[in-house]
């Protein structure tokens, strides 16, 4: 099957892939997916694409708080206190 034949469903699938298909507004799409194995497979693969990217996360090796605060200290204007002039 060419997806172009199912374009209106493709659009709907893509729009609703992250939604709960049990809602009443998804009734038509739900019915179509239960009858069309190709669109169901497409829906499935699209959903899995999102899940894979969601699952691919990275952890920081350590906190950067110290470095960031040290950088901010460089922003502070220098406070130089000049010695008071001696009165003669």
């Amino acid at each position, binding site marked *: 099957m060419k*997806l172009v034949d199912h374009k209106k469903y493709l659009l709907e699938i893509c729009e609703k892939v992250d939604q709960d298909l049990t809602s009443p507004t998804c009734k038509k799409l739900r019915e179509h997916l239960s009858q069309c194995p190709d669109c169901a497979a497409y829906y499935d693969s699209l959903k*899995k694409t999102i899940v894979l990217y969601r699952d691919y996360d990275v952890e920081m090796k350590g906190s950067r708080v110290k470095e960031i605060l040290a950088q901010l200290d460089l922003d502070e204007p220098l406070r130089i206190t000049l010695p008071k002039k001696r009165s003669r």
Partner: protein
Amino acid sequence: MEDDTKLIEAAKSGDKKAFGRLVKKYEQLVYSFSFKICRDKQKADEVLQETFINAYRGLKSFSGNSKFSTWLYRIVTNNCLMMHRKKSHEPVVSLEETDLFKGTEELQVAHWGETPHDAVLNKELKEVLDAAIQKLPLEYRIVFVMRDVEGLSTEEVGKSLKLSVPAVKSRLHRARLFLRNELNEYFTK
């Protein structure tokens, strides 16, 4: 969990310890989001530092109308875009004008089977995911990551990127189809 509003107010009046606590609370979120956009740990680290420095300098402009995290997302996005333009000299591309998406809606359906559902994110699969998303222009990548990966609402993404809701939906639609298509080759070979 400390209240953001109090920490932000304290940081606005120059309390660096309060800002440090905000950094501690949000650094993993910022790092993770930066990585998902840049797909490079070193760049993500640079963006992380830049983001908090910019946040501190611009804290007075944070009105509190959005969540602090959404505001940080916007700063990360700007930093990633700037870094990308500086290093790659790649022009800002409007995908409407390119043929990158040609054919994404006309491919044969192939069944992925069970593979990706239970797929362990091994090194090879990570490389495939990185390569696929790196082909996607940054403006589209950002929308996909904010909406689908980080779970922000369409309205939040639009507000954050100064895009209309239809523009967010259009970019998201194209990004999803493009990525699905790229991975299709891997999962059906």
